[in-house]
């Protein structure tokens, strides 16, 4: 009997665990270690954050789902990995610390035959002075929509400024990136349009000045260096499309910005030209910097070898080409395929937890060297595909004795879809549907624009909004492992 331990029960970890169990059956053990008792469909946090959806509708308890299919669930967080075992045993193990199940605070050693690190990101609010509370959570001045709980708080704070607008008071709403190296521009795009839509529907739009602040050097970069889409007989930049949407909704933008300080009602930021500016706000939602969750690694003698498994910012090293090289020399082939750790062949990473070789957007910096560049996008669909590919490789290694991973999930060979909605009503809401293939542009395969122009598209309308609704129901159904879940792509 083999034991597969999955660290993290988010999009990537849940997908890896459920497929691994489905394929490996009763003879092998699948253990999920994750600190949250609830599973969250994060795209719906936008609806929660505007008060359009109850938090309870974006989450569900995970324990009964795992119990139903025989997955061993530990409500705990991984603290350290010991791939060589310890002095008196060669058996690899992880140390976990319980956060629930009546054992909060207790530690345990959990041995594994195969390990999948799908721990996502630590939301590093404290990397920006004043953005955090010193405990990797949002501070008192701004809100976040990264978790359902944070989104609920955001909706309560939004309601307070809306109340002032209803009384005729002008309010400034600032939404964007809380650090020069953030990602998640797509989620922010959705939140800003959702707020704008809500204010218009309430008839109080005229009382709000809405401002987008971003580390992108052009609007529509989205951490992917932008994309080209068909426009008549031309391929036009996503910059044109995105600027058009912002103009149409009278949303102002600040680009090339690294937020250096957050205070009550004010952010200070540095721009690419080296200048420092301030922006006042009444309501601000700022995304934090992402880092790895801080798991340590030790060798057999107990010496710290965290830097062997993880990059300095805490993401796990996999089969990527991490050689530092200039932007002009970046290639699609730098990106990892099997997601296997090069030193320990029974360790894999999936989703946000793997270390990308570099960003996709061109790295730029302020004159003093401060980098102001979006990190590579970390969207749900490819993360789920990584979880499934890793589970399939492990299945083949266990059941067929494969010596190498048999499946790949490479961001230069995978597409992404973003459906960013505004409003929730089936007929008055709207959305932008974007499809991008591949995520990492490949100029060797697609010399014109780096991407397949037939499926790299963006359009706005009700159809995209309906797609968002349907995705919510389908993916919640799939995550709950209801009948036929394996058939859902």
């Amino acid at each position: 009997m083999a034991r597969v331990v999955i660290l993290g029960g988010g999009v990537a970890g849940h997908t890896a665990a459920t497929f691994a169990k489905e394929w490996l059956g009763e003879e092998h053990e699948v253990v999920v270690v994750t600190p949250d008792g609830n599973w969250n469909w994060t795209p719906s946090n936008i609806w929660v954050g505007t008060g359009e959806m109850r938090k309870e509708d974006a989450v569900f308890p995970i324990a009964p789902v795992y119990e139903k299919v025989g997955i061993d669930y530990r409500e705990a967080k991984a603290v350290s990995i010991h791939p060589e075992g310890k002095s008196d045993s060669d058996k690899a193990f992880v140390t976990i610390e319980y956060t629930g199940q009546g054992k909060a605070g207790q530690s345990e050693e959990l041995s594994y035959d195969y390990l999948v690190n799908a721990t996502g990101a630590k939301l590093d609010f404290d990397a920006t002075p004043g953005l955090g509370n010193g405990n990797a959570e949002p501070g008192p001045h701004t809100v976040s929509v990264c978790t359902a709980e944070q989104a609920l708080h955001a909706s309560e704070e939004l309601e307070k400024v809306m109340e002032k607008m209803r009384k005729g008071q002008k309010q400034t709403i600032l939404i964007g990136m809380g650090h020069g190296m953030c990602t998640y521009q797509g989620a922010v795009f959705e939140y800003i349009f959702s707020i704008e839509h809500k204010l218009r529907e309430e008839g109080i739009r005229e009382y709000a000045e809405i401002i987008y602040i971003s580390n992108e050097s052009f609007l529509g970069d989205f951490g992917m260096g932008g994309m080209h889409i068909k426009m008549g007989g031309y391929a036009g930049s996503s910059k044109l499309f995105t600027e058009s949407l912002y103009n149409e909704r009278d949303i102002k933008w600040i680009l090339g910005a690294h937020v250096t300080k957050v205070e009550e009602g004010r952010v200070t930021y540095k721009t690419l030209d080296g200048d420092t500016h301030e922006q006042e706000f009444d309501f601000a939602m700022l995304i934090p910097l992402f880092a790895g969750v801080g798991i340590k690694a030790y060798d057999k003698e107990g010496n710290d070898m965290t830097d062997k498994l993880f990059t300095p910012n805490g993401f796990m090293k996999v089969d990527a080409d991490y050689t530092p090289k200039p932007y002009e020399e970046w290639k699609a082939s730098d990106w990892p395929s099997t997601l296997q750790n090069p030193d320990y062949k029974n360790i894999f990473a999936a989703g946000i937890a793997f270390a990308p070789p570099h960003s996709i957007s061109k790295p730029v910096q302020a004159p003093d060297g401060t980098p102001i560049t979006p990190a590579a996008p970390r969207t749900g669909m490819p993360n789920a595909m990584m979880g499934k590919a890793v589970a399939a490789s492990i299945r083949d290694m266990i059941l067929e004795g494969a010596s190498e991973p048999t499946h790949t999930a490479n961001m230069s060979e995978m597409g992404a879809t973003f459906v960013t909605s505004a409003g929730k009503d089936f007929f008055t809401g709207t959305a932008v549907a974007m499809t991008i293939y591949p995520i990492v542009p490949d100029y060797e395969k697609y010399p014109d624009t780096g991407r397949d122009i037939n499926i790299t598209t963006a359009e706005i309308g009700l159809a995209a909004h309906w797609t968002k609704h349907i995705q919510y129901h389908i993916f919640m159904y799939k995550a709950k492992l209801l009948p036929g879940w394996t058939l859902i792509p």
Partner: protein
Amino acid sequence: MGDKYMDPYTPKTGAIVSLSFGKFLRACILWQVVRFVVINLRMIVLILKSKH
């Protein structure tokens, strides 16, 4: 077309401007049913191309 799009020499100048027919189509149920099919077919193609 509102004049807010036409401020020359501002960041707004370079953007494409949505015209009234395009805006009508965004909410036209019949057209959107067609687009719904197209968007979802496109997503299926994208998923199939992404499988390895």
